[in-house]
């Protein structure tokens, strides 16, 4: 049982004063797999990671990481894990190499081995040239790579990556994805949190969707995507009459409708024959469609499909945004 599961949490609960963050969360990850915890801001992702990484204690529930209990066998857990957080935990006034050597020493390596390990990781993460420079001069992507390198210093068997690509430009994000992919291939168990469906899809063997402090759906990316319109064809009609006609013809296949913009969206696999067929179906006369585009599912779409509502989490700003969107839906 515990031998095949690297992460196993049952009924985790946590609240800060009257603010409940986790409400009976269950997750598990097999050894050597990548589990993505997908959810909006404030859903409880970071709290979950911090509990599993022994940094805070849960109010309720139990968790085992790498076969050890996160409370009673905290030291053994800490010796087997590493954590790369949202804020790169590095000293800006030390060079990249100095940061890595320091962490290697703290992980228990002697001076000579610490140096060797730091050099090895700098090479591995393409930071050899920057290794002697102070981290304060690094770009966001370089910092994140160094942070990831730092989290690998002690050769952990379980790695927690808390929103590893948050705030990175697309190129750095791509580079980091490759690194995480290789990590997974090397047999390490990875738990990563993310707000991006695309990221979870790209990296994870299994995705757990978290909302309001509990898991609302769990499965392989393919399974989840079958339940969600992974891609959708958005069509903007030239006039209200064509819009109404198409809406009637498509019926329940419409996944999104915005009458004010004369916009309808339908699930698609994005392949040309399918798209062409759909366009011909809703507009046989070939005059009713103004524009169309293929859109990739967002976190909101996942939640809407899985739970029938928008995510609980997020600040007031996003809530207002959701309300306006819901109004548009209600107009139908």
């Amino acid at each position: 049982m515990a031998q095949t599961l690297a992460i196993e949490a049952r009924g985790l609960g946590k609240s800060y004063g009257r603010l409940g963050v986790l409400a009976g969360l269950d997750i598990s990850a097999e050894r050597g797999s990548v589990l993505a915890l997908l959810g909006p801001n404030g859903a409880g992702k970071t709290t979950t990671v911090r509990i599993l990484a022994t940094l805070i204690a849960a109010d309720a529930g139990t968790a085992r990481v790498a076969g050890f209990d996160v409370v009673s066998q905290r030291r053994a857990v800490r010796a087997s894990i590493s954590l790369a957080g949202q804020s790169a935990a590095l000293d800006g006034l030390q060079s990249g190499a100095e940061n890595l050597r320091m962490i290697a020493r703290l992980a228990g390596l002697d001076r000579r081995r610490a140096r060797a390990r730091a050099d090895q990781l700098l090479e591995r993460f393409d930071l050899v040239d920057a290794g002697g420079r102070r981290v304060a001069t690094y770009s966001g992507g370089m910092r994140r790579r160094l942070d990831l390198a730092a989290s690998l210093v002690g050769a952990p068997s379980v790695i927690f990556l808390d929103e590893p690509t948050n705030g990175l430009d697309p190129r750095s994000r791509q580079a980091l994805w490759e690194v995480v992919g290789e990590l997974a291939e090397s047999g390490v168990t990875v738990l990563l949190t993310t707000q991006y469906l695309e990221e979870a899809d790209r990296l994870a063997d299994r995705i757990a969707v978290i909302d309001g402090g509990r898991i609302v759906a769990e499965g392989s990316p393919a399974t989840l995507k079958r339940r969600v319109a992974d891609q959708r064809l958005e069509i903007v009609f030239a006039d209200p009459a064509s819009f109404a006609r198409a809406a009637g013809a498509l019926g329940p296949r419409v996944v999104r409708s915005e009458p004010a913009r004369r916009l309808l969206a339908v699930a698609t696999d994005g392949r040309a024959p399918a798209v062409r067929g759909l366009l011909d179906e809703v507009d046989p006369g070939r005059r009713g469609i103004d524009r169309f585009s293929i859109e990739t599912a967002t976190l909101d779409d996942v939640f809407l499909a899985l739970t029938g509502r928008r995510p609980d989490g997020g600040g007031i700003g996003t809530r207002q945004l959701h309300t306006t969107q819901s109004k548009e839906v209600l107009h139908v």
Partner: protein
Amino acid sequence: MSESIALGRRARGGGGPAVGRRRHWRGRGRGRLDNCLVMSARCTRLSSRNIEALITSLMLPVALMLMFVYLFGGAIDTGTTYVTYVVPGVILLCAGFGSATTAVTVSQDMTGGIVDRLRSLDVGGAAVLGGHVAASLARNAASTVLVLGVALLIGFHPTAGPLAWLGVIGILALFVISISALSAAIGLLAGSPEAANGFTFFVMFLPYASSAFVPVSTMPSWLQGFARHQPITPVIETLRSLLVGGSAGSDPWQAVAWCVAILVGSVGLAGVAFTRRTTQSSSA
């Protein structure tokens, strides 16, 4: 590319938590000492590279000493040349201020992400805070030497013999360690580095209401009680008697008692604050 990671794991004898095994083998006490040394080296390096803070902590005491000696000194009658009177006070002001900046560096560590990484590496509060105190000791050694050097240039003539110098170093080190430990505790309690910075001002002004710059007997009577019995005064009087002679009376014992009391209280407070701070941080 994945080869090198796999290599790192193999190099230490295959899968599993290699680090955990080694830690076990090396023994916990030895590991803790190593961690303290690594953290001390880190904090000292960070201090030496924080140029603005370094210049402030080196130049401010020198500037204050020159100001007191040349601007105010002529008008202050202490029974000796003023430079002889004021140097122990300036050294202590400098040590107090330098130690108090520990509150800022500790607070920076606690608000940045680094503390989580350190804790997930099983580096305890003693090593984290001990590193800051050690760096403070190194910083203050440098600034004290600088102040003494300038003081010698402007006419300070210490009469201390080798034993008395050892006493000076001892009492200063004890003072720096205890104020640094207090500052570390304050840094843990402060919500932000800016708030922690307020504490450095408090510590910097404390010597003014002591015998550092003027004899206590020249102060208004309501202030004399405070000035005589606050911790800075016995430390200064001890330094003064060691450096330029004169009877110290019970001052050395009072100074040591104050420092040890502050140190013990601070270590206890810091222990509680570190645990509280690191188990109840409220980020979701």
